[in-house]
């Protein structure tokens, strides 16, 4: 790999962190942060659920359940489809609440 001759260090500029905490959408930055936390938590729940499905698959096929076996498990096409549908349903159920626009009930 060629690197042209220069006396300057090879890094260019300092790392600029993502502009994460600007633009408070929910009126209070804590609420924005809670949204972030809820999504992160949901992702962890899904990761745990999927891992459990892999364990169940290994057990059902009487294979040894090891860290390596879980990490390298390749779902069957049927499992891919079924697990994707479950994930989709989980997202619809949990984040479907965002569809609630908060309109005042009629008559009020």
């Amino acid at each position, binding site marked *: *790999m*060629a*690197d*042209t001759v*220069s006396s*300057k*260090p*090879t*890094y*260019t*500029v300092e*790392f*600029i*962190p*993502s*502009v*994460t905490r600007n*633009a408070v*959408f*929910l*009126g209070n930055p804590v*609420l*924005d942060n809670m*949204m*972030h936390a809820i*999504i*992160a938590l*949901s*992702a*962890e729940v*899904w*990761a745990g659920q*999927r*891992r459990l499905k*892999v364990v169940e698959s290994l057990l059902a096929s009487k294979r040894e359940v090891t860290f390596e076996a*879980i*990490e*390298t*498990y*390749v779902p069957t096409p049927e499992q891919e489809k079924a697990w*994707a549908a479950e*994930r*989709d349903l989980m*997202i*619809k159920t949990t*984040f479907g609440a*965002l*569809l609630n*626009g*908060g309109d005042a009930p009629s008559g009020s």
Partner: protein
Amino acid sequence: MQFHPESPDLGANDLSRLGFIADLKKHLYSRLAIGNRKVYEKRIARDTDRSLSDPAEQQARREEIRQQMEDEPYFQGWSAAVRASQDLMWLYVGQAVDGDLGRMANRLTELERGAKGSVETRSDLEIPRYISASDIHRMPGNYHTDQGPRDLRAGAMYDLGGAVYQLGIGNRQGALLNDTRGHTLVAHLRRYYPSLKPARILDMGCSAGHNTIPICQAFPEAEVQAIDIGAAMVRYAHLRAEGLGARVHFSQQNAERTRFEDQSFDLVVSQIVLHETSPEATERIIAESYRLLRPGGVVVHLEVPIRYEHSDVFDQFSRTWEEYYNNEPNIGGAALTDFRALGERLGFRNILIGYQSIPKGGAASGEETLSEKPAFGPGSWYIFSATR
């Protein structure tokens, strides 16, 4: 597990988290996004909105809509979720990449032994402000951060994150290679420049090189040069291309003014670069592509399919979300650029403008056409092509 043989290796939990984020984004950008328009139509829309045609009036109205939507709980909740999904995507991508950087660096060393292509970086390259001022699409470190002479992080981040993002917004044709732009560009060339046999090709702003490879594959005899502003970006692109069997010469350069000689390429392209620069840089990049093109050569600038003349003011406002909250610096500029007038002023001829259909199943058939209006959903890319 890898998205392709040279991508960062993901653990099972990495894969699960990224799959979750892609699926959540799909929901946010489809059925949940529709709620924003319902709010607008119920409480904000005016009868005159649909008839506005003056660009200045549209701009003023977009701004009014944005300020009113920002007070709407539905939009607030949706925006908070979209931004969090973007930030978490990069967090998970970063965790996966950081866990595999050592292996990828060793892989690069291995591939360099018999490399068909090359890579060159320049530590004194000045980074333009539209890159250095913020993290574009909230990717930590942006395109240009370079953490050392063997750093690959920015390229690996973009390769992985870009694929997840495209899957999330419904663009599934390129799947995990994320190369629909390259295939669409080739489809455009096959249909509208069928006799083109370029000996020398330049891809301006190639990032991780994922859309350079389809061009290499379409013209296997050509010398392919590809440039990007980021050193870690082109190093990773070099690893990726070598590993996937493509011969590309990568270099760290600024597309506004490259180090190549006048009229030294037969085909010059850029793929979704301009909307991440500035209006002034857009003109300089297109002028540079003219300078580099041999007489009779072809230029193709491919962009995101967002054009304000084909959108009502609410859709225009929706697009500005990317500018205001996702650090896409020139989405609006690109959506308003009159590429035909610009091309004519710079001296291009035989200008073609329109939405090029994405080839179904990946490879171009030669039948995909350019249309004046966008296809439903992410089914096309916007193209400006011309000859010198």
